[in-house]
């Protein structure tokens, strides 16, 4: 079953099979190429087409319903293919070449060159360097060189480009050659040419073109081009997994090699033409034409010999005389023509440069796409390796069926689908299967977008869980220590480590992180902060503040109250827990504990080194952004908890301090190491433009000092405080934030 189309072919309406039409078109195109340099090209082709049309009409008259492949092939057989003409008649280019003006000088000089060898029988056409006027990209220098060296112009161009890139003088050389060399219509002496193969391509068909040129399997050049990429991926995976144990040597060599190959690919992409017509495809494979080319060279040699033999007698004397003159005039003429010709060439190469830019753009986008794909694969690999840990953590963030469902959906759709799509594409490209239907691509894209949307929705839901902040406070019934000195210790964790050999969490995660450890049923947080303030009476006080975030003030308070943080005292030693556990049903809501120690004037305090295990993380969800900071010293965290900076003293662990009227002062280094400044200093107020602290500070009533609230007061987080000054009276501090969803989104995707 074949499709029949009607064509208007030289004033005849011809019903023709579509495939037959294609054959015809290819044939005409091959003729067009063959007669490219022929003066009456259009007329010749028109005549031939006319004849085709006539023969078609005959066939139809005989009763055929339409023109079939066989009909066209039969006519083509009687017409002959361009490759066959070559044997039958004079090479058209030789004819026009001789007719061209440059021919006279060329042959004149050539005659003198070959004069001495006149007698030698196997006539070698004197090879001379010309600029190829018919195959030029810029000035035809490369094509001329290729003709001289009997190489593929593409290869010469490539080498030239490389020379130009590595050494600047290549350009100068080109310009000089352009000015000096005479033009001539040259036939490509290399009949086998490097093309890009559009029929079998992964990216641009460079590899398959090379394969066709060297008659090797396509996968060999492909593998060579892809090898650095594969090696790169493998080594980077290798390094990511065993980065602290192994160092894969020699990857630098591979990287250099790989980028070289990459550049080579791009350059080939730009330089090599695509094999569009049948003739070009034949040339690309070097099929059939190989035999032809031998015939042609011999033939043209014979012709040239005949011509030379005739011309020799008359020219030999004259040419010697004229040679110098000719040369100089030729050069002069060339130099004169140069600007005009360069302009024309620039115009002609306009689309060549456009092509190059297009290629570079394509390469750029492919690179970006490749990076994204690579990143996704790496993320997937990382997830696969640390999946256990993350899965465990997941329970503390997600609550309810919907959130879990959304989390899985977005994970699978956003990460797994592109990887599957990429693999499908790669396999298809490599195996050469091409689907006419694009629904698979659309499906992947839709799924990915759905994944993205569900991810956004999930993010919105999760952020909603961190919107409000609440604290509950409690005074610890402290018995006054007998020696006027208090030591605060953090207890060793009661929870045993779940992952004893969890190398993938690394040091940072496990020992300094917020998620101090994970056990089967709970997550141990160590977001504990100890603050030292001056007591207004003569006794020590200890207050425990539990804080949490939540979707509303009430839920936040609820979460805060669920924090179990038992403090014990044995005379002068206050034992704090190493952290506090959060069970699966409690969820992670950035729970925090603040231990506030009030020291009366003249009494001492020392923080044991064990409190160093505490870490601090504060999530701010507000004004459309999420802050995740775990620097507990030099930011606004203190203010968020409502502590005036005036009376909050800075301390080091392992150092004994004494409270004086002027503040906290150091007694002596008791601890083992000192890495902090010598003087206990008042905490310096960080300069924060956006936080209007000044009015608060100046108000004396706001100063801690009243025993009633123990020297601290709660403040709403600064962002909120400006908007509404109504502060809840209870010990619960609520600060709802309304993040704008767009800014939120943007902060997520950075």
């Amino acid at each position, binding site marked *: 079953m074949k499709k029949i189309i009607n064509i208007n072919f*030289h*004033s*005849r309406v011809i019903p023709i099979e579509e495939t037959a039409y294609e054959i015809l078109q290819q044939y005409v195109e091959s*003729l067009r190429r063959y*007669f490219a340099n*022929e*003066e*009456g090209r259009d*007329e*010749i082709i028109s*005549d*031939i087409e*006319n*004849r085709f*049309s*006539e023969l078609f*009409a005959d066939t139809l*008259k005989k009763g055929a319903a339409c023109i079939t492949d066989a009909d066209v092939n039969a006519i083509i057989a*009687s*017409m*002959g*293919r*361009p490759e*066959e*003409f070559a*044997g*039958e*008649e*004079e090479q*058209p280019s030789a*004819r026009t070449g001789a007719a061209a003006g440059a021919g006279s000088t060329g042959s004149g000089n050539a005659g003198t060159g070959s004069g001495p060898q006149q007698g030698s029988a196997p006539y070698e056409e004197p090879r001379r360097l010309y600029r190829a006027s018919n195959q030029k990209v810029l000035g035809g220098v490369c094509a001329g060189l290729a003709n001289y060296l009997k190489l593929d112009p593409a290869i010469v161009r490539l080498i030239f480009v490389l020379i130009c890139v590595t050494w600047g003088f290549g350009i100068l050389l080109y310009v000089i050659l352009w000015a000096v060399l005479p033009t001539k219509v040259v036939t490509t002496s290399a009949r086998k040419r490097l093309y890009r193969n559009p029929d079998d391509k992964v990216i641009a068909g460079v590899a398959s073109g090379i394969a066709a040129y060297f008659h090797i399997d396509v996968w060999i050049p492909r593998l060579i081009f892809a090898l650095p990429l594969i090696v790169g991926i493998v080594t980077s995976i290798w390094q990511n997994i065993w980065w602290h144990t192994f160092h894969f040597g020699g990857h630098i060599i591979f990287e250099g090699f790989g980028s070289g190959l990459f550049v080579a690919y791009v350059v080939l992409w730009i330089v090599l033409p695509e094999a569009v017509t049948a003739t070009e495809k034949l040339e690309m494979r070097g099929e059939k034409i190989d035999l032809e080319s031998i*015939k042609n060279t*011999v*033939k043209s040699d*014979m012709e040239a010999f005949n011509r030379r033999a005739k011309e020799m007698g008359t020219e030999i004397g004259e040419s010697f005389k004229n040679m110098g003159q000719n040369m100089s005039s030729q050069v002069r003429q060339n130099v004169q023509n140069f600007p005009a010709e360069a302009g024309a060439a620039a115009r002609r190469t306009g689309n060549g440069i456009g092509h190059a830019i297009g290629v570079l753009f394509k390469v750029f986008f492919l690179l970006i796409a490749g990076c994204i794909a690579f990143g996704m694969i790496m993320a997937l690999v990382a997830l696969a390796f640390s999946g256990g840990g993350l899965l465990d953590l997941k329970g503390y963030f997600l609550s309810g069926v919907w959130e879990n469902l959304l989390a899985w959906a977005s994970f699978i759709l956003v990460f797994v689908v592109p990887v599957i799509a990429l693999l499908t594409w790669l396999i298809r490209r490599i195996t050469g299967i091409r689907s006419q239907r694009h629904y698979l691509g659309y499906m992947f894209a839709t799924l990915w977008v759905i994944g993205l949307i569900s991810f956004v929705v999930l993010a919105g839901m999760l952020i909603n869980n961190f919107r409000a902040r609440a604290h509950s406070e409690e005074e610890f019934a402290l018995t006054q220590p007998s020696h006027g000195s208090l030591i605060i210790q953090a207890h060793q964790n009661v929870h045993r480590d779940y992952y004893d050999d969890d190398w993938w969490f690394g040091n940072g995660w496990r020992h300094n992180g917020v998620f101090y450890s994970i056990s089967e049923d709970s997550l141990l947080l160590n977001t504990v902060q100890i603050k030292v303030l001056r007591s207004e009476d003569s006794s020590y006080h200890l207050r425990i503040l539990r804080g949490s975030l939540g979707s509303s003030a009430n839920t936040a308070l609820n979460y805060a109250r669920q924090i179990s943080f038992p403090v014990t005292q044995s005379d002068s030693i206050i034992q704090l827990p190493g952290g506090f556990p959060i069970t699966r049903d409690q969820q992670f809501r950035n729970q925090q504990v603040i231990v506030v120690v009030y020291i009366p004037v003249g009494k001492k305090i020392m923080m044991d080194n064990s409190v160093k295990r505490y870490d601090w993380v504060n999530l701010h969800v507000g004004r459309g952004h999420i802050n995740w900071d775990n620097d507990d010293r030099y930011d606004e965290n203190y203010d968020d908890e409502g502590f005036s900076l005036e009376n909050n003293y800075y301390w080091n662990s392992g150092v004994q301090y004494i409270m004086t009227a002027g503040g906290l002062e150091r007694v002596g280094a008791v601890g083992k190491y000192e890495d902090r400044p010598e003087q206990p200093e008042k905490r310096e107020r960080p300069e924060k433009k956006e936080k209007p602290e000044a009015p608060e500070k100046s108000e004396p009533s706001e100063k801690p000092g009243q025993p009633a609230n123990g020297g601290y007061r709660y403040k709403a987080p600064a962002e909120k405080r400006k908007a509404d000054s109504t502060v809840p009276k209870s010990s619960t501090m609520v600060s709802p934030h309304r993040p704008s969803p767009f800014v939120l989104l943007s902060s997520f995707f950075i």
Partner: protein
Amino acid sequence: MNIENTQSQMRKGILEFCILSVIRRGEAYPSDIVEEMKAANLNILEGTLYPLLTRLKNADMLTYRWVESNSGPPRKYFSLTPKGEAFYGELQATWNELTNAVHALTQKI
């Protein structure tokens, strides 16, 4: 040096001469020329004929006129110009010389 090549060289040399001789006998249409040459056992590809005719025409050896055909568009009928006639005469002379020479050489043994 292969035989095919030499043969094609020989054929090529006489191609123009043959075409001109066919046209000389009266206005001719390209496919007629091919038919006639085929009939004389000189097989050429039709595709080679058109370029040759065009070149000869461009060299003022030939001229053509459009003749209405009973089917389809008009056809090109070629005829010799005086210059073509002269050219033919020269070729004829050369051919006679050549045949004589070749004859003389080949029959000598």
